[in-house]
């Protein structure tokens, strides 16, 4: 199931809320979350839900062993076993096809290419359980004694299929005992509606434009059309993915969980290094804490470490070489920046570093978008002016004007105006009734968003999330 879906909004979610809040019994509440999570997952993956259960179960025991035999060989064995099993699953289901195809291409052999369908969210939940076992092994987290609580942590549907990658130690206290109340609920709703709006009202429309301009005949694409198309994809992927994270964070909060932020206005960054501290934060920090630092971080062969991390980051996004290329591209930028470029950027006026980052990111999204490398090559030619159809087209002109207000909203939505406005507002001295008014206005706005999204979803029969296949 996905969040931007009428069944989720009007059947699943209300049933979940009602059953959850019907009593204060924590065991009941945990049970409700587990049952709904399993149903949520099985709705999209009725068979591979077994894999989720398997992964959660083995890592529950891995965690117990790591703690019980801390410092002894058994703990190490459990850690190794967890890594082998989880990465093995990921390897088999996600990368075996790519691997065999590549071997076939390189050696001219014709081994049969395995065609597993990728279980939804496997890249997210295997990373969660890996982080749990490692944290327990390192003594940074206590192993969960209760199987069901651990299972709840792994299977929590808000983050299950598209992140964020929630670390066990960040939510362990809430797994044991959590408060639920008005504050969390209302903030959770707001956050959810915001995310839903980002996905349905901006990302989906941007996605339509992107595919109109990027999926067609590239020889008929103008340079302006190419820029528009890739900018639309730039908007789409940000609003889609950050919208999904917002919805996940909001939903978790409805039930008393506080997840860490996953996005922090990445497009206002001034370097690729900064961008990756603001984009998909939970993935970046995973690779930092579990790959980069253990390899030696910046103390030993740093550039090599960076290359490995970025290779893996790219590969994580999909079993296709263009994602690896995309990861290495960012790796190269980060290395260049560390080497000298950051110092250069700091000396220049801010506008240059902003332009550099946006340019770098947009080119990056081209690598990300085109899984076919020959199409990518042709697209880049068009992007830089070598278009058979000219630089500008009148159709784009009309499309821009026809969607001017929406474009303005989408672009402004990339800037941190809302937090800025809230801060200013809170600094004002306000009479008491203002906060009530604020509450009403915020609720009203949430309902307006919900209504708009419902209307947009009603006409849409097919509405998959971009990040599902990662």
């Amino acid at each position, binding site marked *: 199931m996905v969040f931007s879906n009428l069944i989720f909004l009007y059947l699943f979610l209300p049933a979940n809320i009602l059953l959850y809040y019907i009593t204060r019994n924590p065991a009941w509440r945990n049970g409700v979350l587990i049952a709904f999570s399993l149903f949520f997952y099985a709705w999209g993956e009725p068979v591979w839900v077994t894999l989720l259960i398997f992964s959660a179960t083995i890592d529950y025991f891995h965690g117990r062993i790591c703690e019980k035999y801390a410092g002894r060989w058994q703990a190490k064995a459990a850690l190794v076993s967890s890594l082998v099993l989880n990465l093995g699953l990921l390897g088999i289901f996600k990368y075996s096809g790519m691997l065999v195809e590549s071997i076939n291409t390189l050696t001219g052999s014709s081994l049969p290419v395995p065609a597993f369908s990728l279980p939804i969210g496997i890249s997210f939940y295997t990373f969660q359980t890996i982080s749990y076992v490692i944290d327990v092994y390192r003594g940074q987290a206590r192993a969960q004694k209760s199987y069901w609580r651990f299972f709840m942590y792994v299977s929590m549907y808000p983050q299950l299929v598209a992140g964020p990658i929630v670390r066990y130690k960040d939510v362990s206290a809430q797994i044991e005992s959590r408060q639920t109340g008005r*504050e969390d609920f209302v903030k959770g*709703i707001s956050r959810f509606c915001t995310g839903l709006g980002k996905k349905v009202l901006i990302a989906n429309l941007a996605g339509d434009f992107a595919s109109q301009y990027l999926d067609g005949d590239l020889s008929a694409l103008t340079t302006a059309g190419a820029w528009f198309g890739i900018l639309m994809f730039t908007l789409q992927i940000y609003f889609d993915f950050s919208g999904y994270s917002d919805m996940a964070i909001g939903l978790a909060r409805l039930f008393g969980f506080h997840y860490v932020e996953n996005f922090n206005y990445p497009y206002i960054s001034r370097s690729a290094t900064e961008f990756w501290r603001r984009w998909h934060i939970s993935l970046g920090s995973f690779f930092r804490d579990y790959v980069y630092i253990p390899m030696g971080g910046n103390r030993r062969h740093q550039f090599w470490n960076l290359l490995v991390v970025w290779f893996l980051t790219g590969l994580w996004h999909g079993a296709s070489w263009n994602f690896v290329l995309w990861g290495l591209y960012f790796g190269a930028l980060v290395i260049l920046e560390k080497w000298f470029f950051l110092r250069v950027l700091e000396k220049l006026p801010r506008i240059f570093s902003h332009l550099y980052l946006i340019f770098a990111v947009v080119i990056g999204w081209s690598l990300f978008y085109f899984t076919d490398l020959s199409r990518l090559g042709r697209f880049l030619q068009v992007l830089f002016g070598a278009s058979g159809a000219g630089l500008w087209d009148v159709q784009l002109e009309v499309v821009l004007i026809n969607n001017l207000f929406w474009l303005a909203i989408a672009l402004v939505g990339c800037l941190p105006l809302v937090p800025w406005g809230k801060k200013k507002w809170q600094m004002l001295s306000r009479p008491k009734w203002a906060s009530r008014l604020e509450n009403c206005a915020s609720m009203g706005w949430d309902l307006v968003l919900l209504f708009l999204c419902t209307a947009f979803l009603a006409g849409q029969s097919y509405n998959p999330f971009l990040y599902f296949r990662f």
Partner: protein
Amino acid sequence: MHIKEKREPGRRKGKSRPWQMVLFTAVLTAVGIASLLFEKPNVSEMEQRDLAPKPAISWQSWFKGDFSKAFDAYYADTFPMRDFLVAFSSSVKESLGIRYDDIRILGGADAPVETPDEPVSQPEQVLSQPEQILSQPEESLSQDSPSAQESKTEEIVFSQPQEEEDDIGVNKNGIFIYKGMGMSLFGGNASVGKVYADNINAYHHALGDSVRVFDMVVPTSAEFYLPEKYKKLSNSEKDAIQSIYKNLSDGVTGVDAYGAIRQHTDEYLYFNTDHHWTGRGAYWAYTAFAEAAGFTPLDIGSDYTVKQIDNFLGSLYRQTQDSKMREKGDYVEYFIPDVAAQAYIVQKDQPYVKYKWTVWEESVSGSNGYLVFLCGDAPMIQIDTGTCNGKSIVVVKESYGNAFVPFLIPHYEHIYVVDERYFQTSLVEFIQQNGVNDLLFLNNAFSAMTGYHANNLKKLMYQVYVPPEQTEEESQAQNSRAEEPKWQGVQEDDIGNEDDDE
């Protein structure tokens, strides 16, 4: 293990009631309950399609993931007030920017971009969907009670949306709306046109000189009504048609409908809200055909009884729900010559049975306006006329042909209207068996340039009808459908009529 939950300070003693929690949950729950209790529609008039049916659950369908997919589709299709919500979202989309120069362009990304290499296997897919042809409105001759008339409009279940879209298949450039007139932008591909022409040549080759073969490719509205500045957004249909005609072999006559229509572009030749031409547009094409075939056309000013159906909103409106298009609207004119005509229809999967049919289905209204012509598409419609000259013609067409065919009534004793998408037997044999004199291929520029249509022409030549294999379940389903009174009564009646006819 017992876990204490702390109470929020605000919740104590009802100081600040959690009204937001209650309100939000209540809204979701209320809509959810309504969505389960409301009566579910089966068809969407706005979209002219059958809505996704409620799926039956079984272990197998659950584990294959089919159930959840089908249920998603069913739930979204039958959500309460869906038509209102869809219309609302369309109007929001319309106000996302400025309508500069009274122009709006909607992308055509969803329309398939077909290539000449496309496999010829598509028709099978089409034919395997049993609902499609049967969903014609049935004959009204036998029904005269007012209640039957009323229910009839509801029963007009819609003709094949996928095929309708296919008619505008090379629509990759999208829809252009100028002053309330919608136009599909033409993205035709000359290499498909070559396949189309070659396939027509093959008929001439097979039939020899005893059958005159004509091909008429009709331009669409974008060719004439795009504002000057935007002309190049649509490929030239004139060039496309010329390149097709150049590829026709000597025995095949290309009919210059383009030239005839071009001289009358200030008349109402194309709909504003639909991708078809009007009856008047078809009339001018008919004059061009008359010239090519060597007969004198009737005069549009004096020789016909002219009738019209108002408040027509067609396919382009349904696709876009554009407010300017709705304001502009359309009416459907049709022209009845003073010659008797009786039509018969051959339905899908009954290629050897004919039922009575109408040439003009005058009871249609609203978004079904274009169905006045032949009452939609069928594998074959035969029109026997009072023109006792012994001449007969086969018209191979998609829906563009429907507005054209009635003009032939004063010139042929028998007119066989073959839909290139649905006809199920060998067309060459059909032509030979019926002693046909003339064979006309009529397509709009979009379908002539669409691989699916071009390939179909070849497939029709010698195809052998294979009755659909039915599993027990399916045949039961069909039986139960046949038991519905609306079909049973009419079919029995019509079988009787058919016997008379023989």
